[in-house]
C-alpha cells in the first residue's frame, strides 16, 4: 500500500490553501478532488475579503499566493456596498460601504471556477517539487485507521492508501465528518440555502450603469418583499462582464414555509431595480415562415444562429476596452470604428433575417449550495483523531448582517491546519492530543472565530449610523429601546457586553427574524422609498431550461438514496430541491438524480454522497 504524510480531501479554496501552505513549508501533500477538474464543483456569491482584524492575525489570500494581486483572475474590487429595502416598485437605499470596508484590506468579487483553478495552478507548482500534487476526479468514500493510527483512505477510483494526517476540506456537506462521526449533520437551523444566477452583461455597460470605473465594482444587497417572507436576502455583485445575482435564505425558514429556490431568485430578477440593473439588448428571433421550402427554413435557422453567435462575441469585445484591444491586436481590425462597422453589418444582416432587438437579460448559469452559519454550527473542536476540518466542512462561515464570509475563513483555516500538520510531521506526532488539540486551539484563537461568537460593537455602530435617519417608530416597539440604547456611545458598550453575555444563541431569534429581513424593510421602502420604474419585463427561464443549460457528466446510478419516501421532510424536498430532482407519486417521494447540483438541501433525511469522481454537475462560473 502506498504511504504519504498527508492527504487533503476537497479542492475548494480551503483545501487549496492548505496544499499551498504545506508546500510553502516544504512538506509533501496530496489533494484529492471529486470534480473532473478544480473549480467544477465550487459555488460562491461571492466576495473574497482580505482582512486586518484589530486583534489577532489571519492569513490572507495575497499572503499565501504571493502573486495574487498581480495575476489572479478576480473580477472587480468592490468599492460600493449598498443595502436596499424593497416593497413592490419602491426602494429605500442605504450606503453601507463603511461596513464593507470595516477591518478589510479589500474585497474582490470572484467566480470560483476561474479563481480556484488559478489557486490550484499556484499550489501545484510548489507541491510538485516536493512530490505531491492534486489528483482530480477522485471521490473519497471511506476512512478507517490501522493499528498504528494511520488513516487508510478508500476512494471510488484508486487503490487504497495510507496517510498520517488528513485535512478534510470537503465542504458544507462533508461526507468525511459524517462517515467518521466527527459531528452530526448540520441541521436546517444551522444552515442557509444559497441560490445564484450568473447574468451576462458587457463590461462597459456594467461600468456605466453602476457608476464604477474599470477597476471598481459594486455590491447591492436586498431585503424586504423580494425575500418572499423568508429570513435572509438577495445580492447582486458586479463581475468583469457578468453579474452574480443570488438569494441566501435561512434553511429553517424555508422548511417552515417552503418556496421554490428558483422562485426566490425570480422574485429578485423581477424587482424593478434589479431588472433595470440586468437589462441588456438582446436579439429576438422571429418565427420562420412555414410556407418556405424546408431547406430554406433550415438555411435561415442556421444563418440566424451563426450570426447571433458572432454578434454576441463581437459586441461583448467591442464593449470592453481590453476586448477592443484584443481584436485590434489580432490584426482583424485597425481601429475601434472598424469593429463597430462590423457589428453594425451583422445587425443589418440579422434584421434582414427577421431578427429584432429588444430589452431583456441573459442568464448564463444557475446554481445552488448550502452555506453554514458559523454562529450556530461551527465545530467547537474541528478535528477527529488525525483528521482536521477546515472551512465549510467545519461549519465555519461568518454571517453578520448582509455579510457572508466563507472564502477568507476557509483559506485562513487551511493555513492553520497546514501549520499544525507541518509541526506534527516535524515532531512525528499525529495523535489527536497533539495535532488535533493544537489545531483546535489555533482556530479558537482565530479572529474569525471571535466573529462567530461575539457581536462587534464597532461594526454595529456602522449600521446604527446608517439607520440614523430612519424614524424610530418604524423600527417598532420591540427594537426601539434597544436601538436607543445602542445609539448612545456609552450605553452601547454596556449593551453589547450584555448582549454578548446573553450569547448569540439567545439573541439570534431576535436579530435574524422576519421583522429584520422582511417587515421593517418593507415599511422603510413604503414610507421613505423612491419609485423605480421598470422599462421591460425580463423573460425568466423555467427551471427545466436552467437545469438543461448546465453541464453534467451523468452517472447511471444515483449518489443519493431516499430513506423514507413518505416523510414530511422529503415531501418538502419536492419544493425545496433547487434542481427539481424530487417528485411525488402516489404519496411517495422519488428522486431523479441526473439534474442534482450537489447543494445538500436534501441531505438531512437521505443517504447522501457526492457523486463519484468526475460525475455530476460541472459549473463553468461557480
Amino acid at each position, binding site marked *: 500500500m502506498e504511504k504519504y504524510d498527508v492527504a487533503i480531501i476537497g479542492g475548494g479554496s480551503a483545501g487549496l490553501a492548505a496544499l499551498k501552505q504545506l508546500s510553502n513549508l516544504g512538506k509533501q501533500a496530496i489533494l484529492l478532488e471529486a470534480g473532473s477538474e478544480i473549480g467544477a464543483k465550487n459555488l460562491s456569491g461571492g466576495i473574497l475579503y482580505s482582512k486586518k482584524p484589530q486583534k489577532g492575525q489571519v492569513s490572507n489570500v495575497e499572503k499565501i499566493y504571493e502573486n495574487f494581486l498581480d495575476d489572479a483572475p478576480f473580477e472587480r474590487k468592490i468599492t460600493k456596498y449598498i443595502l436596499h429595502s424593497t416593497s413592490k416598485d419602491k426602494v429605500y437605499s442605504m450606503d453601507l460601504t463603511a461596513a464593507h470596508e470595516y477591518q478589510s484590506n479589500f474585497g474582490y468579487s470572484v467566480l470560483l471556477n476561474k479563481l480556484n483553478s488559478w489557486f490550484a495552478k499556484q499550489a501545484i507548482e510548489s507541491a510538485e517539487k516536493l512530490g505531491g*500534487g*492534486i*489528483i*482530480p476526479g*477522485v471521490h473519497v468514500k471511506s476512512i478507517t485507521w490501522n493499528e498504528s493510527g494511520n488513516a487508510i483512505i478508500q476512494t471510488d477510483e484508486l487503490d487504497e492508501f495510507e496517510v498520517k494526517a488528513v485535512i478534510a476540506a470537503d465542504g458544507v456537506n462533508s461526507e468525511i465528518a459524517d462517515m467518521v462521526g466527527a459531528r452530526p449533520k448540520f441541521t436546517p437551523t444551522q444552515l442557509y440555502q444559497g441560490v445564484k444566477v450568473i447574468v451576462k452583461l458587457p463590461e462597459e455597460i456594467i461600468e456605466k450603469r453602476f457608476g464604477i470605473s474599470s477597476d471598481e465594482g459594486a455590491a447591492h444587497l436586498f431585503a424586504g418583499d423580494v425575500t418572499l417572507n423568508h429570513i435572509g436576502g438577495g445580492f447582486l455583485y458586479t463581475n468583469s462582464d457578468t453579474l452574480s445575482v443570488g438569494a441566501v435564505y435561512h434553511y429553517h425558514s424555508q422548511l417552515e414555509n417552503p418556496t421554490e429556490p428558483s422562485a426566490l431568485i425570480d422574485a429578485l430578477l423581477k424587482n424593478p431595480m434589479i431588472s433595470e440593473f440586468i437589462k441588456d439588448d438582446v436579439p429576438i428571433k422571429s418565427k420562420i415562415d*412555414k410556407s418556405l421550402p*424546408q431547406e430554406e427554413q*433550415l438555411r435561415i435557422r442556421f444563418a440566424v444562429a451563426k450570426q447571433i453567435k458572432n454578434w454576441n462575441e463581437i459586441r461583448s469585445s467591442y464593449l470592453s476596452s481590453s476586448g477592443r484591444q484584443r481584436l485590434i491586436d489580432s490584426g482583424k481590425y485597425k481601429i475601434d470604428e472598424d469593429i463597430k462597422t462590423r457589428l453594425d453589418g451583422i445587425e443589418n444582416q440579422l434584421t434582414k433575417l427577421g431578427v429584432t432587438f429588444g430589452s431583456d437579460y441573459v442568464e448564463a448559469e444557475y446554481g445552488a449550495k448550502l452555506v453554514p452559519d458559523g454562529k450556530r454550527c461551527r465545530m467547537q473542536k474541528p478535528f477527529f483523531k488525525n483528521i482536521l476540518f477546515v472551512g465549510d466542512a467545519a461549519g465555519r462561515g461568518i454571517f453578520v448582517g448582509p455579510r457572508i464570509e466563507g472564502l477568507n475563513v476557509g483559506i485562513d483555516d487551511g493555513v492553520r491546519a497546514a501549520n499544525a500538520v507541518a509541526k506534527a510531521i516535524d515532531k512525528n506526532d499525529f495523535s489527536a492530543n497533539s495535532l488535533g488539540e493544537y489545531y483546535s486551539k489555533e482556530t479558537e484563537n482565530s479572529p474569525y472565530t471571535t466573529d462567530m461568537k461575539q457581536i462587534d460593537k464597532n461594526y454595529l455602530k456602522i449600521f446604527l449610523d446608517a439607520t440614523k435617519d430612519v424614524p424610530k417608530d418604524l423600527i417598532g416597539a420591540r427594537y426601539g429601546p434597544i436601538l436607543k440604547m445602542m445609539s448612545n456611545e456609552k450605553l452601547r458598550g454596556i449593551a453589547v457586553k450584555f448582549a454578548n453575555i446573553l450569547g448569540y444563541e439567545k439573541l439570534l431569534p431576535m436579530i435574524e427574524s422576519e421583522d429584520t429581513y422582511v417587515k421593517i424593510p418593507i415599511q422603510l421602502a413604503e414610507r421613505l422609498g423612491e419609485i423605480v420604474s421598470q422599462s421591460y419585463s425580463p423573460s425568466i427561464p423555467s427551471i427545466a431550461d436552467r437545469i438543461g443549460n448546465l453541464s453534467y457528466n451523468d452517472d447511471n446510478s444515483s449518489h443519493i438514496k431516499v430513506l423514507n419516501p413518505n416523510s414530511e421532510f422529503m415531501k418538502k424536498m419536492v419544493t425545496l430541491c433547487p434542481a427539481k430532482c424530487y417528485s411525488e407519486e402516489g404519496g411517495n417521494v422519488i428522486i431523479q438524480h441526473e439534474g442534482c447540483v450537489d447543494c445538500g438541501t436534501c441531505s438531512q433525511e437521505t443517504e447522501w454522497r457526492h457523486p463519484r469522481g468526475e460525475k455530476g454537475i460541472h459549473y463553468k462560473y461557480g
Partner: protein
Amino acid sequence: MGQLNVAVIIKLEPDFSEGNVSYNPDGTLNRAETKNTLGPHSGIAAHAAFFAKVMYDAKVSIGTMGPPIADLALQQAQQISDAEELHLYSDRLFAGADTLGTAEVLKTGIHKMKEKMDIVFSGHRASDGETGQTGPQTAWKLGFTFLGNVVSYTVDMETRTIRAKRLISLQGTPDVLEEIEAPLPVFISIDPTYKSSFDKVSQRLAFQKYKKEAEKRADNYKDYFTMFNADEIGVAKSLVGLPGSPTIVYKVERVPKSTATRKAEVIDGSDPEAIRKAVGKMKEALDAMVIK
C-alpha cells in the same frame, strides 16, 4: 533496469467530425476543404505510449509520414503522449506509397530516432482507407514481435518483457481476451477499445505532472520537431513511394448506396405541435416493438 523507449507511428487524417468535413458535389471527400487532424486510432496509440510514460517513465518519440502540414498531427499526438522527439518524413518521392512503401519509410525513420526502441505503437488502422497493414509490415521490417489488438499491457522492467492482453473478436464466437508475454522489443497495434487506467496515487500524480509537461511541450512543439526528406533519413529509394509499392490500385468502384428504406421527416424543434406528433410516432413505434 535501464530506460524504456517507445515510439508511436501516427497519421494525419481528414477530420470526420461534424462541421469539419466537406464533400464534393459528387459525394466524394473534398480533401482541400476538409480540415485535417490526428487520426483517432493514432490518438489511441499516443495514449498507450503515454501510459508507458506515466508507469515506467518511458521516453516517447513520434514518427509520421505525410505532407509538411502533418506537423499538426505530431503536435496533437505530443500533447497526448508527452513525446520529446517528433519526426516527420516528407518527400515527393514518398507519394503514392502503399502500406509496404510506407512501412519502409517508417522503419527507416524509427532507426533514425535517438533511442533504440523497446516498443513501437501504431493505431489499429487509419480511418481514411488504409487497410491495417502498415503496422504489421513495419513490425516485420523492424524484426519486432507483432502484437495486434492490444487492450492493456504492463512491462517488467527487470526482465524486459511485456505482458499484454489482446482482444480477439471473431464473428459468430464470443470475444476472447488473450494474455501473452513477450520479450522486448515488440510492435503493438493498439485496439480501438484501449483505455489507460491509473489506480495508484503515485501514478495519478505522475499522470498530472506529465500531462502538464505534455501541454507545455506541445505549445513549443517546434523545439522537438525534425522534418526529413528521403535523403535525410537515408531510405533506399527503390523501396519507397511508387517504386516500392507493389500494390496497384487498378480501379476504384463506387458502391452505389442503397436507397434508404426509412422515411425521414424534418421536424421544427421550436414547434411544440410538431414535437408532440414526433413523440406520438415514437410511442407508436415502441409499442409495436413490444412482443405481445
